[in-house]
């Protein structure tokens, strides 16, 4: 633990990112003990109230208690990102390792060209098409995470491939090969442990990407209309023109939560990058 604090002192971005993330997780988990999660849904409390002693965060046009919305919604938005990030990274690891390990062969060419083409189509448009074509499927938090995962594998796959490609030629991999290790064994015993910090960074990046995509989709009204996720909250802010009637609390609160969520993830990946690439350390 003392080692951790000493490290954070050297790598403040990492410390700040993890710190905010822990705060948000506490806010959404411990917060549930203090609010009634049911009040995050429409018609549960009086509408349009500015912050007051009973509802410290105010209430919205549909009669949601915004404190409950923030507590429940922060968790939901993080959950969407976590689902998309985990799936995206897993697929990315499989494709990235296969392409990288067989670098230069036919398999690599097929996988990389597919990734390149896929990444040239803006992911957001693919998501818009998928989500609006399957509009009859009831979109909950899990479904939203699954949909967003459709585009969150390509980035990790490409960067993991590049890492594996450069690591494949290192002496310790040659040594393992000479010792008669199988391909799968080399990947699991030599490559994965060495790439671990990099993989954790990719995870944090794809969670960030997943949340960004989900926010964009929900801001356009694609998502569960009922669930109080952050993106949906912004959609209703826009839908009911909260800015025209001066309901500042309804605008500022989700904006602050989203800024905290996104900044914490960016800072965390930034800090992890320093762990993954020690050579970049202290250059700036």
């Amino acid at each position: 633990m003392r080692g951790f604090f000493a490290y954070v002192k050297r790598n403040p971005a990492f410390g700040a990112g993890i710190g905010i993330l822990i705060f948000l997780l506490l806010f959404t988990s411990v917060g549930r003990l203090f609010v009634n999660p049911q009040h995050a849904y429409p018609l549960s409390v009086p509408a349009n109230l500015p912050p007051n002693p009973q509802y410290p965060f105010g209430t919205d046009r549909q009669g949601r208690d915004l404190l409950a919305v923030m507590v429940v919604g922060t968790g939901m938005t993080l959950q969407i990102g976590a689902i998309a990030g985990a799936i995206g990274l897993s697929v990315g690891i499989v494709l990235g390792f296969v392409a990288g390990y067989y670098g230069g062969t036919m398999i690599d060419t097929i996988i990389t060209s597919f990734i390149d083409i896929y990444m040239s189509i803006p992911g957001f448009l693919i998501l818009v098409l998928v989500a609006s074509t399957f509009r009859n499927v009831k979109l909950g938090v899990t479904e939203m995470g699954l949909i967003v995962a459709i585009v969150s594998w390509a980035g990790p796959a490409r960067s993991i491939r590049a890492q594996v490609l450069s690591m494949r030629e290192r002496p310790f991999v040659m040594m393992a090969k000479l010792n008669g290790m199988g391909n799968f064994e080399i990947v699991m015993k030599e490559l994965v442990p060495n790439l671990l910090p990099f993989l954790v960074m990719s995870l944090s990046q794809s969670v960030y990407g997943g949340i960004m995509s989900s926010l964009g989709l929900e801001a356009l009204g694609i998502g569960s209309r009922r669930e109080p996720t952050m993106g949906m909250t912004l959609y209703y802010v826009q839908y009911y023109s909260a800015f025209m009637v001066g309901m500042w609390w309804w605008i500022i609160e989700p904006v602050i939560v989203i800024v905290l969520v996104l900044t914490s993830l960016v800072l965390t990946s930034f800090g992890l990058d320093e762990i993954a690439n020690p050579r970049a350390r202290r250059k700036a």
Partner: protein
Amino acid sequence: MRLSYVIRRVFFVFMVIWTAATINFVLPRLTGRDPIKEQLMQQIASAGRKPEDAEQMWRKYNDLFGLDKPLWQQYLSYMSSVARLDFGYSINSYPRTVMEIIIARGRLTLPFLSVAIFIAFVTGILLGALLGWNKTPKWISAIVVPPLMVFSSVPQFLVALVLIYFVAFRAKLFPLGDPYPKTMIEDWSNPAFLAKYAYHAVLPILSVVIVEASGWALGMRAMMVTVEGEDYATFAEAKGLKNSRIFFRYLMRNALLPSLTGLALRLGFIITGAAVTETFFNYSGIGSTLSTAISTFDYFLLYGICLIMVVSIALATFIMDMIYPLLDPRIAYRGQRG
């Protein structure tokens, strides 16, 4: 620049567009039902639609997708329509074709978005270069970098929302909504119209610029630090060259190139991001048309806009790829990729 490189890039652009069009074709068929037909039938059944119109739309739809034919023939006829940029009629504003709507609305988005991307890029790299320069006092970086990190990591529409509330609603400095006053006629040769258009575009431009310029500033700052470590930078310093010459000709010139690659890669994000931003401003360009198409389930319009966006982004990236070797003489593109 080798011809083979150009041919490979053209082929790549073609593959991207073809893949996007195929996604458009396959998606509705994966649902097991036909969402377009359902929507069309609903439209036909709803009041206020003349039966002849419905029939013509239906025929056009059949034509476009050839529903009675085998799947591969449907695919071919769909592809040939797409190649002619024929996306059929809009389901909800019937007599107008999808292409008509895209042109009418895209015309309002394109000028402001290009200006916004240009301003964002130029301010971003200048700011980043200054921040990364070793002659700039350290405390300036310490103050400016944290807000840049926040701005660069949030979506454009979040900035838009804050601008709408504080600048448009509270301070009433700039208007919301339409790209030009409703009382005016869209006439691009009329200076008064252009002035109004520019005035109405200030806030959307600002949302794009704040987010994108921050990202480029951070990237450029990091590149400057790398370039400053190069031997030629030390040599320029040792020669006693003027600071301004070292800054612009030695450092910025070399740090600029990765930022240009970054611009090409990010174009898709900026354009789709701006689509959501437009919706928040109620700015009736192509972005809010996309959002209307989504909420009214106007599938032809939706697929048409998405495909046109893919095509324009692919073409813009292609053009940047072609310009790149002119800017960086070190790159000769000798048949190697990546």
